């Protein structure tokens, strides 16, 4: 045994011992608090019977559930990371947790009588669906780590937004779904602990059986195949195992971020090199990390008397860790394929796009619905309604054009076809700032909230720039910085939302977009911003063409790479922030429009940008019309509507090419 190996083993032991001591110590503290003579529980219960019951049926199972959930997530993270050869993979970054959560929210709202065991089955189906979509999206990039995480972030955002809509539409009594979406570990009997144990132990045993396959999978696919492994089948089996583990955790205690990401990475950091030690250590470290965090959260709860969801608190750490991990990723080779298009198809393009825009505008302005009938409104009605329809249509279309332009910029400069404005994290930080405004100063008007959101977007943008700068604005580093920022803001938002009440309802409404409340002033400002920001993008389109050539060529052609990327990123972030203020955080328009534009024949950066912007406006026009009419008088969130239309199309297109 070399000294190096010894010191790494010693370090490992020390870390585990410290964490274990902390974990047990915090548990002991909570027990002592329950039994203490001047504690709240004892004061209220003169008979003295209750502390023992609390210790036995609440504190002890909570501690055990913390350990087991942490272990399960650590194991799931280790499995996912080795199967995908991706150190950034974990149940939350792959959208598994969000998918499982969405499935349970939908079940609670639409079919509550199911209850009981099927809940976990529903969570499993939702999680599996989400991860399959993520993998489907990143298939063509052969599951390259950054792409998988970016796709996971988008699917996660879509699921969260759908869940928010369901909660919003089904009424306040589901408020507790937030708490549970935030992953509260509070317990009051042993059932969840036993259920988790019954699932974790066999899953751990099975993954030990897969040990050889997992070691082989760390080779490249041909190598593994040559050694007699059925690569696809094994991958799928291990993937299903990991999804089952995280579905079990989600259905028992809710969404708990970060642990699955951090535990395997911590194991590797402490010297675990091969599949075996990583698989053994990850559950241990996951269990200790979650139980320590929960112990700290409980201590804060006791002091503040406010029940914080442990899962959202752990998720707060996910952003920074993701950022740090992404700086250690090897740089992926940029995708140099340029899709060739004939000039002929391009000539026929503009009349069609402009014609479509005109038709959609006319329909969106003139068609209405009252008491069940959809049709063109009478002239006198129109006179009343136009001053209301026009602003929201203008804002929606301008927002769509801005997002499409931002998406186009990002996809070009990162050479990543999945780069979408949503993953920049700028809109998440805008919404977080707005939520803080709503809670801190409820009397603030719309103007104040928009100012707050703008400040938040700018702050988020500054953080993004600082993060991306350290990677010299290299494409994937930029995207991962955005994902990290977004997941941090999302977790902070969840912590805020668990306070419930009317404020949470108001924030939910924002989360799903605010086109309903657009007035002529906001519409005008949005339109002017769109013009001011899209024009420079068109002017700078030559840079995009040059950047697509790779790293050396543009420099040789006299382009200051770093500065060009900074300017383009700034533009994309501004476009995204301006659009998200009216459209809400998720729409996928920024992702879809450039793909459709390429599909219909736009080739060079300038025509691609212009076509994307026009298509973005078109898509949002359709979404505005549909979201207004579909469930009248209840309005669907416009961004969500757009993404529901867009996701299947996007999957189809990505699979086809």
């Amino acid at each position, binding site marked *: 045994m070399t000294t190096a190996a010894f010191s790494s083993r010693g370090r490992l032991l020390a870390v585990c011992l410290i964490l274990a001591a902390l974990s047990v110590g915090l548990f002991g503290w909570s027990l002592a608090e329950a039994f203490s003579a001047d504690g709240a*529980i004892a004061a*209220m*219960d003169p008979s003295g019977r*209750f502390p023992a019951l*609390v210790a*036995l*049926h*609440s504190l002890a199972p909570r501690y055990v559930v913390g350990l087991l959930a942490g272990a399960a997530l650590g194991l799931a993270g280790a499995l996912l990371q080795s199967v995908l050869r991706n150190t950034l993979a974990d149940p939350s970054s792959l959208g598994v947790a969000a998918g499982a959560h969405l499935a349970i929210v939908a079940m*609670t709202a639409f079919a*509550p*009588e199911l*209850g*009981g065991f099927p*809940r976990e089955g529903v969570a499993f189906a939702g999680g599996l669906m989400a991860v399959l979509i993520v993998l489907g999206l990143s298939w063509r990039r052969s599951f390259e780590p950054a792409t998988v995480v970016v796709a996971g972030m988008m699917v996660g955002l879509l699921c969260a937004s759908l869940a928010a809509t369901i909660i*919003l539409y089904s*009424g*306040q*009594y589901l*408020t*507790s*779904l937030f*708490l549970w979406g935030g992953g*509260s570990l509070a317990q*009051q*009997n042993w*059932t969840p602990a036993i259920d988790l144990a019954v699932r974790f132990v066999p899953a751990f045993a099975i993954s030990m059986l897969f040990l050889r396959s997992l070691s082989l999978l760390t080779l490249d696919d041909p190598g593994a195949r040559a050694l007699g492994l059925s690569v696809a089948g094994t991958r799928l089996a291990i993937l299903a195992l990991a999804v089952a583990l995280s579905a079990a955790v989600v259905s028992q205690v809710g969404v708990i971020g970060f642990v699955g990401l951090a535990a395997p990475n911590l194991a590797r950091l402490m010297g675990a090199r091969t599949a075996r030690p990583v698989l053994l250590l990850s559950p241990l470290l996951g269990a200790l990390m979650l139980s320590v965090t929960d112990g700290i959260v409980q201590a804060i709860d006791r002091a503040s*008397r406010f*029940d914080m969801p442990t899962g959202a608190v752990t998720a707060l750490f996910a952003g920074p860790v993701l950022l740090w991990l992404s700086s250690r990723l090897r740089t992926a080779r940029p995708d140099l394929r340029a899709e060739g298009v004939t000039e002929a198809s391009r000539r026929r393009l503009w009349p069609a796009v402009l014609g479509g825009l005109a038709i959609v505008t006319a329909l969106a302005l003139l068609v*209405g619905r009252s008491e069940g009938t959809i049709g063109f409104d009478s002239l*006198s*009605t129109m*006179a*009343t*309604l136009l001053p*209301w329809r026009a602003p929201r249509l203008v804002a929606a279309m301008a927002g769509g054009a801005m997002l499409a332009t931002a998406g186009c910029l990002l996809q070009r400069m990162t050479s990543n076809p999945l780069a979408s404005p949503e993953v920049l994290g700028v809109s998440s930080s805008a919404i977080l700032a707005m939520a803080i405004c709503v809670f801190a100063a*409820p009397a*603030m*008007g*719309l103007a104040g909230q928009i100012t707050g959101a703008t400040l938040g977007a700018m702050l988020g943008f500054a953080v993004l720039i600082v993060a991306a700068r350290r990677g010299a604005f290299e494409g994937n580093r930029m995207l991962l910085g955005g994902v990290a920022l977004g997941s941090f803001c999302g977790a902070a938002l969840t912590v805020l939302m*668990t*306070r*419930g*009440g*009317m*404020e949470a*309802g*108001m924030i*939910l*409404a924002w989360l*799903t977009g605010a086109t*309903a*409340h657009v*007035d*002529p002033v906001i519409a005008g400002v949005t339109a002017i911003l769109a013009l001011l920001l899209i024009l420079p993008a068109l002017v700078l389109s030559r840079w995009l063409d040059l950047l697509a050539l790779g790293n050396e060529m543009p420099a040789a052609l006299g382009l200051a790479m770093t500065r060009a990327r900074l300017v383009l990123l700034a533009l994309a972030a501004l476009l995204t922030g301006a659009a998200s203020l009216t459209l809400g955080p998720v729409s996928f328009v920024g992702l879809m429009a450039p793909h459709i534009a390429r599909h219909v024949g736009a080739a060079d950066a300038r025509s691609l940008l212009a076509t994307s912007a026009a298509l973005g406006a078109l898509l949002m026009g359709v979404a505005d019309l549909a979201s*207004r009419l579909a469930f*009248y*008088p*209840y*309005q669907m*969130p416009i961004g969500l509507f757009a993404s529901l239309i867009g996701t299947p199309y996007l999957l189809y297109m990505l699979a086809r090419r």
Partner: protein
Amino acid sequence: MSGLTRRALCASALASLAGASLAGAAGTARAGEPSAVRVAAIDWAMLETALAIGAEVVAAAELRLYRQMVVEPAASPAIADLGLRGSLNYEALLRAAPDLILSAPWYVKYEANLSRIAPVRSFRIDQRGRSPYEPAVAAARELGRLTGREAAAENLILAVAAEIDAQRERLARRRGESFSIINIGDPRHFRVFGADSMHGHVLDRLGLRNAWAGQTRYSAQAPVDLVALANAGDAGIIIVRPIPSDALRVLPESPLWNALPAVAQGRVHVIDPVNPFGGLPTARRLARLLGGALA
């Protein structure tokens, strides 16, 4: 400044012009009271108050949920639904052509837009740290003045006070007993109604004690976990419906729940849904439901 007001004026003039034609087409104009103020309510507390004083309510937000969660006064099917409170359907509001829009501070950011349709009055009933009852009385009175139904408003105020007094008599033998009044979120989390909620106030007025009255750290509705309920010691428990189905399944099996003194001694009462942020009609409904459950 002047541009803004001019624009607002034009918009509201246009709106009322076209609104008149819309309302005529909808056939809601009645012969009896030609000058009744057409009221639209964004906030439920004001909606129930307006309905209770017999004002002409033409539109209200989220009626589907109102019918489940607030229940009374019943909202007639003729009232136009305005969609979600967080995502109001302004087109439906325009079609209803109200003369007055009732709002609350939650919706302050929509007020600029709403006032393009009709004058907006915002009523602050719920506020952290004070009882909502007196503000609800003042709001009812003010609404009576605004809609020309002063007498009906005074009647409502008296009727609610009378109902509370009657139920107080009915519960005389329970005077001084303390209760926690809660909503169940899931088997592990509860919302507790503190002293600054209508629920807390009505408990008080009925001669009962709100077990959470002294604990100002809990505002109107705070999510707390089950263990915190034990803090209320011997207090009885009043559960406000709806109860989620998983709670119905899990709670009876929970040793901790069963160990709560109130549960062990069978002092858990369940009442029908009550508006968590209500006005005077909510106070009346609460008093009646509590009287029925505890007598």
